[in-house]
């Protein structure tokens, strides 16, 4: 007895030290909700690109803003006032609302550098024939409705290089201007497009940027002479999505933990009728949660919000152990030791079974899944260990809970008759199998969008604003890598030539390239060399105007400009500063890890997606160029995870069977334990399919949990000698354990976050089914 007491004290001390350590680790833990949990640990080049783009790319830095309500002039005024304020804010690289902020500077830049920038500048164009052709084109343009816009340019730019450049730049569609600010096509909202300085993955910075936008909106509202309360601000974009999903996950995890804790506490209080029992019963849970978070923090360096959500659900499972201890043991200290002797081996086996199942997740290449696996393993071990070694010593001498023998006896009678349900259960199970087999092709959703915690309403808003704005979705990219800026720009120019052919063939609507704004130095030199010396140009021009309704003297300014361009300094990236082109070059030309990369986003023809094969074929001669379909790539990434997770789970099942076989050395007993679990899994899967819910990776985690939790029930119902009846207390403990699990997980089913919801709808019914199937298919004691 003294020995037990001393070892009990030691266990308590060790436990407290352990808890302190966990709290210490958790206090330094970084919590994330971004996509990092979904990114692979060892990416391919395409995946690496996907990751970079998701976390840091141009698209990730865009915030689309809409102003709704009020009337069009008010919206436009709010837009202009907000833009004015935000343009002065360092948080934003650019704030666009259609106001001609850079237009003047852009035009000056383009016009001043037209002979370096225009792809039409070739030696042939400045031959007498080339000039004649270019001039007659320009004169024809004068006759057209657009002539008005080019008339003043003719003397300096008779070959129409400026028109060439403007045509290239204006290839994208821009929103309409209403009252001097961008508006949606239906005219119901003003539009703004902002680029943040911080990366899209920097959720705190994105939140800060959102707050700055909101503040600018509020201040603009305050300046309104007649208050305009009907005006509303909406925002969307990848950064906005990560901020709102973080908020959603945080809010839901907090709310669900509080509610589930309250529910479980109420349930336990009803059962135990003792506050001390309730408090003590939650100790293993708290230990498990702390251990789980600390383990993930140590193992992964950061904890994802979803893992925390999972933690709240785990409360429902970890509380089982203390229920088993309190309900199954008699009402005195000696009996707690007796419980340890009689029931602990069974529970230990249940814990081991669960660990075998979850260990498979640790091998997943999907960090999010591996986090859940580690969390579950650490949490379950901690909860079970605390129940076994710490809790009995903490129980006061007079500890007792409400007498449950009446409930136990009733359950006992019910369990006796459960066998009568064998046939109906078998039919249900057969039907479930039939549904699963029949719907096997549509059981899983392997689109990554299914994981997104972003609500449908937000996705629709995003689609709407994006369509209004004509904003790039940056789905298709050609990526060119190289050792220097010059080499990637040169390669981009070669790729552009290939892509231009695709545009002309109608495979592409268009594409963007950094070399358009910043041609490689060699191309710039070649363009300079295309311009002949002034005397030669003058002679050729005189020949070129033959037969055209213009005099050569008109073009004296052109001769001077062309001559100056021959020796003008070549364009550098820094020359673009303060122009709209700088933003494009910054986004499309990236230096990272000592390597240069140029991105060439492709635009699909309207209403069609891009056919990758002809483009890959066209690029096949260029080993440095890579065609990436970001959406296909991310879907492929996720479906890879999903299939890997399915294989790993099957591996986990094999491990569980192996473990049971090693312990029992009887195929029949293993079968009897596995059968109710398999039946529960099958029925839940069929049920989800029947309700039209396609399974995502978190349903799979849920099924693993069903196996983990259900294995305890199956083990309790399993007895080597069918003549020993199951104790009524054991039955009562299983009922309460399953009720707490259902309370913990069932709540998740009501979450808006698909990841949490998936676990809830799987585990709650699965656990109940596992209990029923275990009871129904247990060997009958009176047999």
């Amino acid at each position, binding site marked *: 007895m003294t020995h037990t007491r001393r070892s009990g004290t030691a266990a308590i001390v060790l436990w407290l030290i352990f808890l302190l350590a966990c709290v210490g680790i958790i206090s330094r833990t970084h919590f994330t909700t971004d996509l990092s949990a979904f990114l692979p640990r060892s990416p391919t080049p395409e995946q690496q690109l996907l990751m970079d783009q998701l976390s840091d790319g141009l698209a990730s830095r865009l915030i689309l803003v809409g102003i709704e309500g009020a009337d069009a002039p008010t919206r436009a005024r709010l837009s202009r006032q907000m833009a004015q304020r935000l343009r002065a804010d360092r948080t934003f690289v650019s704030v666009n609302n259609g106001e001609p902020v850079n237009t003047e500077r852009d035009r000056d830049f383009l016009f001043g550098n037209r002979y370096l920038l225009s792809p039409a500048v070739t030696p042939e164009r400045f031959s007498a024939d080339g000039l004649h052709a270019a001039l007659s084109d320009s004169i024809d343009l*004068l*006759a*057209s*409705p*657009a002539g*008005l816009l080019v*008339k003043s340019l003719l003397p300096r730019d008779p070959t129409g290089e400026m028109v060439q450049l403007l045509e290239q730049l204006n290839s994208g569609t821009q929103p*309409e201007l209403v009252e001097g600010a961008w508006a949606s096509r239906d005219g119901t909202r003003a539009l703004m497009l902002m680029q943040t300085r911080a990366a899209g993955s920097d959720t705190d910075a994105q939140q800060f940027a959102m707050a700055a936008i909101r503040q600018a909106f509020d201040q603009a509202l305050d300046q309104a002479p007649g208050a305009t309360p009907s005006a509303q601000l909406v925002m969307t974009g990848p950064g906005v999505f990560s901020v709102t999903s973080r908020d959603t996950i945080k809010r839901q995890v907090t709310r669900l933990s509080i509610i589930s804790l309250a529910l479980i506490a109420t349930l336990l209080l009803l059962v135990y009728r003792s506050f001390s029992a309730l408090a003590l019963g939650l100790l293993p849970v708290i230990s498990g949660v702390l251990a789980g978070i600390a383990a993930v923090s140590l193992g992964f360096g950061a904890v994802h919000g979803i893992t925390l959500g999972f933690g709240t659900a785990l409360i429902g499972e970890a509380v089982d152990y203390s229920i088993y201890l309190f309900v199954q043991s008699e009402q005195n200290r000696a009996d707690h030791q007796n419980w340890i002797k009689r029931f602990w081996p069974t529970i230990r086996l249940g814990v081991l079974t669960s660990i075998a199942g979850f260990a498979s997740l640790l091998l997943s290449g999907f960090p999010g899944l591996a986090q859940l696996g580690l969390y579950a393993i650490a949490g379950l071990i901690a909860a079970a260990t605390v129940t076994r070694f710490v809790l009995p010593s903490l129980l006061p001498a007079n500890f007792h809970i409400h007498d449950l023998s009446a409930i136990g006896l009733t359950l006992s009678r019910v369990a006796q008759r459960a066998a009568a349900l064998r046939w109906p259960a078998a039919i249900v199970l057969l039907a479930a199998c039939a549904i699963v087999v029949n719907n096997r092709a549509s059981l899983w959703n392997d689109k990554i969008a299914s994981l997104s915690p972003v609500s449908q309403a937000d996705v629709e808003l995003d689609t709407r604003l994006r369509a209004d704005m004509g904003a790039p979705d940056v789905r298709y990219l050609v990526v060119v890598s190289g050792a220097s800026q010059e080499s990637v720009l040169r390669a981009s120019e070669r790729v552009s030539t290939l892509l231009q052919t695709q545009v*002309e063939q109608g495979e592409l609507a268009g594409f963007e390239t950094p070399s358009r704004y910043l041609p490689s130095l060699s191309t710039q030199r070649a363009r300079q060399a295309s311009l002949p010396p002034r005397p030669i140009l003058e002679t050729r021009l005189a020949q070129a105007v033959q037969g055209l*309704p213009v005099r050569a003297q008109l073009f004296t300014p052109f001769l001077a400009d062309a001559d100056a361009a021959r020796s003008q300094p070549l364009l550098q990236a820094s020359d673009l500063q303060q122009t709209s082109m700088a933003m494009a070059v910054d986004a499309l030309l990236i230096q990272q890890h000592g390597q240069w990369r140029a991105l060439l986003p492709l635009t699909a023809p309207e209403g069609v997606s891009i056919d990758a094969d002809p483009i890959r074929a066209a690029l096949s001669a260029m080993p440095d160029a890579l065609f990436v379909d970001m959406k296909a790539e991310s879907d492929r990434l996720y479906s890879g995870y999903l299939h890997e997770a399915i294989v790993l789970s099957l591996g986990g099942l094999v491990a569980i069977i192996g473990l049971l076989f090693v312990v029992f050395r009887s195929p029949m007993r293993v079968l009897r334990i596995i059968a109710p679990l398999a039946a529960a899994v099958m029925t839940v899967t069929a049920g989800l399919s029947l309700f039209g819910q396609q399974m995502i990776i978190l349903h799979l985690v849920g099924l693993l949990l069903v196996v983990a939790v259900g294995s305890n029930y199956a083990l309790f119902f399993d007895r080597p000698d069918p003549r020993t009846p199951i104790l009524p207390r054991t039955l009562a403990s299983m009922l309460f354990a399953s009720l707490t699990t259902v309370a913990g997980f069932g709540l998740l089913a009501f979450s808006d976050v698909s990841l949490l919801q998936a676990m809830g709808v799987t585990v709650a019914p699965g656990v109940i089914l596992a209990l029923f199937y275990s009871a129904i298919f247990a060997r009958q004691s009176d047999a």
Partner: protein
Amino acid sequence: MTRLTRPHFRLCALVWLALLVSPLVQAAPLSIAQLMAGLAKHPQGEATFTETKTISILEQPIESSGELLFIAPARLEKRTLKPKPETMVLDDGILTLERGQRKHVLQLKDYPEVAGMIESIRATLAGDLKALERVYQLALDGSHERWTLVLTPLDPKVGAVIARIRMEGVKDVVRSVEIIQADGDRSLMTIEQLAPPQ
């Protein structure tokens, strides 16, 4: 122009005489509203045009010709066949220009000067008085048989480019559109109706 005025004057005189002898009919000059109502009666029209542009930097005027198609209220197509094929389609505020391989789509609102020119034709053909009055000050001269409508831009920004637009017509049909730019350059488009007005 003077050539045409004389028979026109005779016609007017005849009409005036007729009105004198018929006391039941009130003599009244053509009002803009009447003209617009008359123009609005033709929901659709097809015509050929010849356009002469006189531009100071060019030694001689450039001529172009082609076809016009108007479908009320918002679609106007101008298909230039000579000297180079070119299509300009205005449909509900969106201007599409096609030259050779190139195609441009513009929001007309973004280009007030161009919009001023094209809207004047569209709105006149449609008999859309409100649209015209938004952009121009209107002055109508003549009678239903022969009228002249002069549009002067209200917006000084448009006025800096377009001095005025002068349209001539007979009954419910526009015969010519002359655009006089602020810098003295001008274009004259004469319109020859193809299909009879419906």
